[in-house]
């Protein structure tokens, strides 16, 4: 429970560094800010405690300034919908009970992400002996470290690197994303979201695992809503930078969102690109100093795409096959495809642009991969579809609302 308490206090507080905001958004922003600050600070050699102290002080200053201006930061915006609220909360309670008792057993969480978190908590540096394979073999050594740094912070503050301390980081991201969707899209959409099998119960990237796809889905959701609003370019840029520092595919996702954002507001995009640029420079600098291990180099294989065009159609077919698989997604993606099309016809093309561009990027990656195509799709596509679930939910909501 110590880890749960730390997560519930630390991240919302850090998330108020740019002013008081709803708890769910503050939680997600805090998750991004703590991890990103520790990473960028780590690249320039700043000790973890110092960086964490700066972020937390900024959070306290943000809250106090907001209080002095009498700003409101409550969840607000959604009233009523008692049944939808009950439907949203019920699975979260059950998941909390399960996460509190059943130990972690997922693959990527243990093999990659939390092994890194343990090393970060132990070595307190992002380029220590662990990342030079001097302690153990570090698989996927160059994966970005934002979420492992969050987990390491909880472990360090709890003085316990056991994974039960960080279960509520991941469940917290899921719950915060649900309530963020409730505020931004609607109560019924949030209720639908928490029941999505891939998010709620999947042992590959669900809320009970330590995969990072849930965090990517949350950051894409937050960036997407900022993109649609077009009012807070710095915040938009922060979400993009968090994407780049969370997973390898986060950077192309951030670029796609930035390009679509450029059509909305080119002048403001310059502000948004500043945090992303800092994140990318830090990521490149860090990667240049540590050895790669077993990562697949998709980027260097991308020029081979013309030679692998025969794999494009099977890749698209595999993606669609999984999207309409009822045991993983129910009828969600069928509804989403219809809704995205309807919105595009009504000249609201941005949700469709995000989903189609991201899907196209993943299809291209599948085409150039050295993996057996079907194996790779079966192992990953449901996780990748999670990344664009929020724009899809937005489309479902908007298509039935905007008559």
């Amino acid at each position, binding site marked *: 429970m110590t880890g749960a308490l730390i997560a519930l206090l630390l991240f919302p507080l850090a998330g108020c560094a740019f002013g008081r905001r709803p708890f769910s958004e503050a939680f997600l922003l805090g998750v991004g800010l703590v991890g990103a600050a520790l990473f960028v600070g780590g690249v320039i050699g700043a000790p973890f405690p110092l960086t964490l102290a700066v972020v937390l002080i900024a959070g306290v200053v943000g809250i106090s300034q907001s209080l002095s201006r009498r700003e409101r930061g409550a969840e607000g915006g959604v009233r009523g919908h008692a049944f939808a609220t009950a439907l949203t909360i019920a699975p979260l309670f059950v998941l909390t009970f399960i996460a509190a008792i059943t130990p972690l057993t997922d693959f990527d969480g243990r093999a990659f992400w939390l092994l890194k978190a343990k090393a970060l908590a132990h070595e307190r540096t992002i380029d220590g002996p662990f990342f030079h394979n001097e302690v153990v073999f570090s698989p996927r050594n160059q994966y970005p470290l934002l979420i492992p740094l969050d987990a390491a912070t909880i472990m360090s503050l709890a003085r316990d690197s056991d994974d039960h301390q960080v279960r509520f980081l991941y469940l917290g991201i899921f719950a915060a994303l649900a309530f963020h969707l409730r505020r931004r899209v609607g109560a*019924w959409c949030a209720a639908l979201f928490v029941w999505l099998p891939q998010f709620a119960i999947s042992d590959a990237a669900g809320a009970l695992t330590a995969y990072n796809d849930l965090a990517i889905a949350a950051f894409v959701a937050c960036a997407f809503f900022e993109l649609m609003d077009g009012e807070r370019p710095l915040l938009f840029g922060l979400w993009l930078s968090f994407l780049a520092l969370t997973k390898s595919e986060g950077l192309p996702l951030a670029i796609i969102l930035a390009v679509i954002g450029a059509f909305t507001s080119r002048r403001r995009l310059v502000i948004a690109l500043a945090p992303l640029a800092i994140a990318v420079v830090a990521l490149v600098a860090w990667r240049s100093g540590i050895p790669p291990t077993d990562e697949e180099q998709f980027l260097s294989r991308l020029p081979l795409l013309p030679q692998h065009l025969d794999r494009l159609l099977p890749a698209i077919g595999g993606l669609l096959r999984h999207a309409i698989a009822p045991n993983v997604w129910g009828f969600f993606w069928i509804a989403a495809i219809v809704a995205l099309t309807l919105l595009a016809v009504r000249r609201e093309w941005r949700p469709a642009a995000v989903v189609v561009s991201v899907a196209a990027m993943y299809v291209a990656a599948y085409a150039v991969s050295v993996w057996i195509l079907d194996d790779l799709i079966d192992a990953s596509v449901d996780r990748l579809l999670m990344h664009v679930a929020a724009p899809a939910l937005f489309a479902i909501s908007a298509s039935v609302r905007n008559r």
Partner: protein
Amino acid sequence: MMRRVLATILFASLAWTTVPALLHLAREAAALRRMPLHDRRALVTKGFSRATEDVIASTPPNERLALIPRYDHPGETDAAVFFNYYAYPRATRTWFGLQAYALDVDPHRPATVVGFGGGPHRTTYEALREESMCGPNIVRDLQSSAEARREMIVPFVASGDGPPPDLYTVEAVFAADTPANVDVTIFPSGITRRFVVNGRRTFRDLYYETTGTLGFGWARIRSDVSLRTAFHFVNRGRSVSTPIAVITDPPPMPLHFPPRPAARLWLANFSDQEIIAMAGGVGARVPAHGLIQMGPEVIVTAPKPLFAFLSEKKPDGSTEFIWP
């Protein structure tokens, strides 16, 4: 109304999968709730976390461990990664495959080996090598000799690794008409192991099965009943084999061999006293019960009985023996 119907159908399509799975997971959690965390973890990892803890507890805290997952054994590579997860911050080094470990000449290579067949466990390189030798013997249909003896000498037995894919063992067969107690003594170490033969017994790696180590030497075999035998020097990595002669007494001196420039000369001393032999005019000290190798000399002389033979590696990975 239409919107509500569509929303209900959509929700039902999600709950159809999620509700039973959530209930199942909740029931599992309820069953675990009174157990300590370590027991819960051992249960959900099917004993893996506990086996990892046992390995860690049975080794000194500062000792680096050699993890050897065999890439041709499904699941072992992942198991090594999870071992690191549960054992961290314990320092380990991973070799993917036995030969990667065998060929590593790093003087700081850890000696304590963790294998992953059937879960993480402390083992030795030799035991892991033996464990990895699955499948039938290379010499199909091992036939024992027609002649039966109670005592014999096998002038060369070995178990060892060469450059990949070479992997050497001695395959053997013991056959007796009545139950036999057979003592196999490997020299120069003198390690002896008794094998009980009920009718027929085959060996995949006689040297290792007797000594528990890798190496080479010669073997004395004694049985309480007459035994029919056969011995083959096998390169498992290339699926080739060569018969090994069985002798009772060293032949008289001097020994003459045909000129074979690429061959090695082996001198075996079956006695318990050191022998100074002359091979091609060069003096050679052969310790008691020793087996030494020299260049390809053609004439061997010694004041006492001594056994010698030539061996030559062939391009197909097999070894040709030239007996006196």
